[in-house]
C-alpha cells in the first residue's frame, strides 16, 4: 500500500502550477524531490498532505482519499519551511510553543527525541520565532518532522540556512530515524549533491510536470560526460540524447543521457566520465536559456 496521486492539476489565478502530476510513493523509502525555484515542489507537497486542495486529480493513502480524512492525516506530516514574518503570525510565538502545538497533532510524538534534538542543535526554544535565523527555523522544522513519527513525512527545504555541520547532523539523523523506523521520507532540497547518496528514489519536477521519477542510481548511471576534440565528441555521441553542450576552441564537452542498450562509441579519442546527480539535474533542467 502506498500514497498515490493521480493526474493532479493545480491552478492559481488561471496559471497551472502543477500539470497532470501522477506519482506513487511506496512505504519505507527516502525520496528526493528536486526542481528549480517555482517548479511547484511546495505546492505538490502541500497537496499530497491535504493542506491544500488540488484543482483536479486525487490523492489516496492505502486506497482512501486523504482530503478531510482524519485517519489518513494522522499518517502524514508536512513540515513546512517556516517564515516567521508578521503575516504568518509566528513571529511572536516561542519555538517551544510551536513544538508543543505540533506535538498535539501527532499521536506518536517522540518527546524524548524532541529533547535530544533541541540539545543537539543547541536551539534556544524560549526564543520568539520572529527573532530566529533561517537556520534556527530550519532546525524547528526538522524537529517537527522527525518527532512526528508520521509514516509519511515530507520535509520542504529542511537544510535551508543550516551551516555545514548542522546539515551533516541532519542527514545522519534522517538516516538513523529511517533505519530504525522504516518511515517514508520525501525531502525537497536545492543542495542536491549532499543529499544525493541518501535518496533511494528521485522525483524531478520541472515547470509543474514530473520530468523523471525513479531510482536515483539508475538515473545517475544513465548520464555521463563526454569530452575531447569537437569532431571526436560528435562522432562518439551520434544518435544519443545530448544535453548541456559546452565548447571552448576545438574542445567540446557534453552530457549524454543513455537509453537502455545505448552506448558511447569509445573507439573515439574522448574522455567519458560519470556525472553527479546535481550535474545530471542541471543538464536536464537548466537548458532553456541557451536554446
Amino acid at each position, binding site marked *: 500500500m502506498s500514497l498515490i496521486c493521480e493526474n493532479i492539476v493545480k491552478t492559481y489565478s488561471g496559471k497551472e502550477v502543477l500539470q497532470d502530476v501522477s506519482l506513487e510513493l511506496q512505504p519505507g523509502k527516502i525520496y528526493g524531490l528536486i526542481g528549480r525555484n517555482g517548479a511547484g515542489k511546495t505546492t505538490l507537497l502541500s497537496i499530497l498532505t491535504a493542506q491544500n486542495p488540488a484543482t483536479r486529480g486525487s490523492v489516496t493513502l492505502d486506497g482512501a482519499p486523504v482530503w478531510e480524512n482524519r485517519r489518513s492525516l494522522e499518517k502524514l506530516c508536512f513540515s513546512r519551511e517556516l517564515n516567521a514574518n508578521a503575516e504568518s503570525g509566528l513571529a511572536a510565538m516561542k519555538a517551544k510553543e510551536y513544538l508543543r502545538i505540533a506535538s498535539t497533532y501527532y499521536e506518536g510524538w517522540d518527546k524524548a527525541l524532541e529533547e535530544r534534538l533541541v540539545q543537539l542543535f543547541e536551539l534556544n526554544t524560549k526564543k520568539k520565532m520572529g527573532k530566529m535565523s533561517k537556520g534556527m527555523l530550519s532546525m524547528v522544522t526538522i524537529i517537527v518532522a522527525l518527532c512526528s513519527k508520521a509514516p509519511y513525512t515530507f520535509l520542504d527545504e529542511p537544510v535551508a540556512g543550516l551551516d555545514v555541520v548542522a546539515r551533516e547532523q541532519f542527514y545522519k539523523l534522517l*538516516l538513523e530515524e529511517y*533505519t530504525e523506523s522504516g518511515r517514508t521520507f520525501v525531502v525537497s532540497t536545492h543542495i542536491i549533491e549532499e543529499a544525493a547518496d541518501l535518496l533511494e528514489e528521485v522525483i524531478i519536477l520541472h515547470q509543474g510536470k514530473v520530468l523523471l521519477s525513479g531510482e536515483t542510481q539508475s538515473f545517475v548511471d544513465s548520464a555521463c560526460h563526454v569530452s575531447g576534440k569537437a569532431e571526436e565528441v560528435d562522432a562518439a555521441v551520434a544518435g544519443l540524447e545530448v544535453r548541456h553542450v559546452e565548447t571552448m576552441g576545438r574542445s567540446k564537452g557534453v552530457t549524454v543521457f543513455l537509453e537502455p542498450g545505448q552506448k558511447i562509441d569509445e573507439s573515439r579519442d574522448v574522455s567519458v566520465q560519470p556525472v553527479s546527480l546535481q550535474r545530471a539535474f542541471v543538464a536536464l533542467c537548466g537548458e532553456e536559456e541557451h536554446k
Partner: protein
Amino acid sequence: MNEQLTGQKSIYIQIGEMMETDILRGILLEEEQVPSTNELARLYTINPATAAKGVGLLVDEGILYKRRGIGMFVSPGAREKILAKRRAAFAENHLAPLLAEARSLGISKEELIDMIGERMK
C-alpha cells in the same frame, strides 16, 4: 571501512571494493561478521538500499555469506578469491590506462620496460 567515497564510481561499487580492500588488509577476517547495511548507511550517510546493493555484489561472488537472522560474514577463502579477481583485472584496470598515457607521450615499449625494471628493483 573508513575510506572516503568519491564521485568517480557508483557508490555501491565503492562500498563493495572497500570491503574487499579491508579483507585483503586483514581489517576484516574470514568467518568474521561484517558491518550491517544500516551501520554502513550511517557511517557513509548513504541510503541503506545502496549499502545493501554493495554487500549484495560480494555475496553474489561468494566473498560474503549470510547467516540467517545474524548478518553477513566473510567467507572462508574470501581473501584468495579477491586476490585472484584483482589480479585478473589488473591488466585492464591498471595497465590499459598506463599504456594509453605512454602512447600519447611517445614512450616506447623498451623505455617503459626499463622504467618498470628500475622501479621494481
